[in-house]
């Protein structure tokens, strides 16, 4: 009797699955029309302003020219990263194109998950692949030297400062400040009674949040996550000195709510004029100079990333368009990617939406467009200089085992960096110590390193 029941259950199970599979063929959604048609591609992208712009411009331009419809889904960075990795790793095949960060591209390329795009890019002379800024190309290349994603926009990091506040105290910011100078200025400009903090820095847990700026500080203090033989260096004196410096600076002169501040919170704080300095992504400048979104437009000065032992210390990041190997529409996908990363698209954005919204930082030629230079004159030179001097292969004082400035280009780093960042963030909040955070971090880093030794 139980056996019969089991068989009946199994049969019913198969029945249900067949029926539901049948339904899916009939009409998979309410919203879409012609989902499986060859001229529709699906795109997943991170919710940044540049991506919103491309969503607005695609139908009237790209679709009109090529007849290819693009369906977009926008997700926040964390959800996007989790979801795309999941989908690509399991060959879920839900996307034809996706925005992928500089961290993932080389790793995924190595796993054979992405289409290479060098061949198509070089075949298209109008695309002018040599115009792409060198560090951008190298950060998106696999071990075979081929590019596996096309950069949409790129950024480095620099120091932004509120010129009014600096003038009021009679301080002049050098073009290439040191961290010691920055700490000194932060102490002078910190004015709790007026609700103004000396500096704004990220404290939000996440390898791409807190550890983006913090790893650049570690680099310039002479530290590293791993040496070239995969010895974990998280509790080394240099790493510790850098982290102590960062945490103390933030505790003493940082913004309120530092342990929960990411890029967006800092943008808000600094944009409302509540912080004298902010060390973060160069892409922040576009928003800060927009009077509708910021109260400090026109009052911001820009300097190179502060340093200690190295000459430059800016990070290197790009959001790039990639095609998963699972796409069945590689031609249409490449058409979209090449359009999105072309010179013409930059011009289109400039003319239709304004030159400050151009997805910059990937092509040298962008910085010689007169209209763009005019709109970005406050920060264009420092931005380009920062990107050109960032070296993903050798960002610190010692040789590295993997690619990356503000991250280590191995799959385990996202987990490692996030877990250590949680503890450092707790140290900023005062419920943990840097020593304990880094001692735990060292253990976790050693575990990771075992697989590579």
């Amino acid at each position, binding site marked *: 009797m139980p056996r019969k029941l089991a068989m009946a*259950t199994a049969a*019913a*199970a198969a029945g*249900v699955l067949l029926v539901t599979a049948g339904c899916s063929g009939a009409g998979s959604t309410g919203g879409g029309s012609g989902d499986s048609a060859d001229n529709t591609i699906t795109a997943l992208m991170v919710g940044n302003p540049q991506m919103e712009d491309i969503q607005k411009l695609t139908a009237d331009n790209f679709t009109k020219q090529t007849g290819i419809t693009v369906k977009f889904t926008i997700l926040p960075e*964390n959800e996007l990263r*989790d979801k795309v*990795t*999941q989908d690509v*790793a*399991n060959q879920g095949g839900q996307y034809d194109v996706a925005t992928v960060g500089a961290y993932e591209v080389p*790793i995924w390329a190595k*796993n*054979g998950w992405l289409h290479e795009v060098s061949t198509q890019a070089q075949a298209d002379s109008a695309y002018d692949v040599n115009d792409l800024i060198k560090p951008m190309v190298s950060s998106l290349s696999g071990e075979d030297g081929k590019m596996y994603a096309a950069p949409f926009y790129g950024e480095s990091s620099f120091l932004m400062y509120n010129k009014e506040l600096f003038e009021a105290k009679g301080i002049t910011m050098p073009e290439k400040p040191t961290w010691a100078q920055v700490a000194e200025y932060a102490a002078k400009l910190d004015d709790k009674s007026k*609700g103004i903090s000396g500096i704004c820095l990220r404290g*939000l*847990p*996440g390898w791409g949040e807190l550890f983006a700026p913090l790893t650049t500080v570690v680099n310039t203090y002479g530290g590293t996550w791993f040496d070239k033989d995969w010895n974990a260096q998280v509790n080394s004196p240099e790493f510790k000195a850098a982290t102590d410096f960062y945490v103390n600076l933030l505790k003493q002169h940082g*913004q*309120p*709510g*530092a*342990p*929960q501040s990411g890029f967006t*919170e800092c943008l*808000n*704080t600094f944009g*409302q004029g*509540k912080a004298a300095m902010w060390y973060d992504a160069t892409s922040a400048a576009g928003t800060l100079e927009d009077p509708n979104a910021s109260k400090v437009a026109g009052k911001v000065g820009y300097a190179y990333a502060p340093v200690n032992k190295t000459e430059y210390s800016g990070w290197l990041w790009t959001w790039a368009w990639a095609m998963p190997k699972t796409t069945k529409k590689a031609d249409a996908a490449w058409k979209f990617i090449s359009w999105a990363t072309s010179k013409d698209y930059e011009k289109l954005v400039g003319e239709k939406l304004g030159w400050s919204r151009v997805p910059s930082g990937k092509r040298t030629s962008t910085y010689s467009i007169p209209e763009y230079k005019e709109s970005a004159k406050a920060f264009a030179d420092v931005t380009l200089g920062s990107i050109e001097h960032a070296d993903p292969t050798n960002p610190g004082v010692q040789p590295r085992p993997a690619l990356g400035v503000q991250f280590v280009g191995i*799959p*385990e780093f*996202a*987990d490692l960096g*996030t877990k250590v960042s*949680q*503890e450092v*963030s*707790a140290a900023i*909040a005062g*419920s*943990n110590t840097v020593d304990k955070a880094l001692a735990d971090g060292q253990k976790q880093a050693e575990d990771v390193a075992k697989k590579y030794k």
Partner: protein
Amino acid sequence: MRRAPLLPALIFAIIVTQVPFLYTLYLSTLSWNALRPGDKPFVWLDNYVTVLSDSRLRSALLNTVVLTAGAVIFSVILGLVFALLLDRKFLGRGIVRTMLITPFLVMPIAAALLWKHALFNPTYGLINGLFGGSTDWVSSYPKAAVITTLVWQWTPFMMLILLAGLQSQSHEVLEAARVDGANAWQIFTKMTIPHLRQYLELGALLGSIYLVNTFDAIFSITQGGPGTATTNLPYEIYLTMFRKFEYGEASAAGVIVVILTIIVATFALRVISGLFKVEENR
């Protein structure tokens, strides 16, 4: 024959919940990291050893208990207070009831984001904006912040259950007690609370079932931090699955959670089994 009406639902539930569970059992014996494609060797119970010896799982378990219990207890108490208020007649009772159930109807992910960005934010959040100060609520009091959000959403649910309980009280009996000289407090403790017992248990049970699975609020308010202060079991499994991509370990942790769930469920249902018995005797 009598079983026939039950079968469709039973078979459906078995397929959609038990087949994946058997699959989880199988996955939990593999060493499988999705970021390193290739072979997935069979490793017996290694994943269970890894997971059980990791102190993160124990702290996640503790956090789950604290967060669930905190949210359930406070929302039941507040819900009871509101239900007692609404059980009286006053001007605009319907409007007040509408206002009080509104938080339950807001999309949970929207509620979490609203609290995090518009209310708790230390620089421009409404709480500091109204009362001054620059307290960073989410990182100074992470558990309390998460619990507050959950209580705000679930109090209406408890209130609705308890309100119905109050309204099912017989007015004649209450009136009789009053005539006999019982004061309001005596009536409340000796009559109302015992009458509400089943409703309180039910609210607590349903609340626990849903709140033990809290994911949206943790994911969007604290990301499990600072440190691991608010990493509960669902979020810890999520991290293992989506950040470490250790599918074997994630599955093993999932199996452990299921076993714990069944143990707790057996206990919890014994509590309400009183409810079942009452019916059988009807």
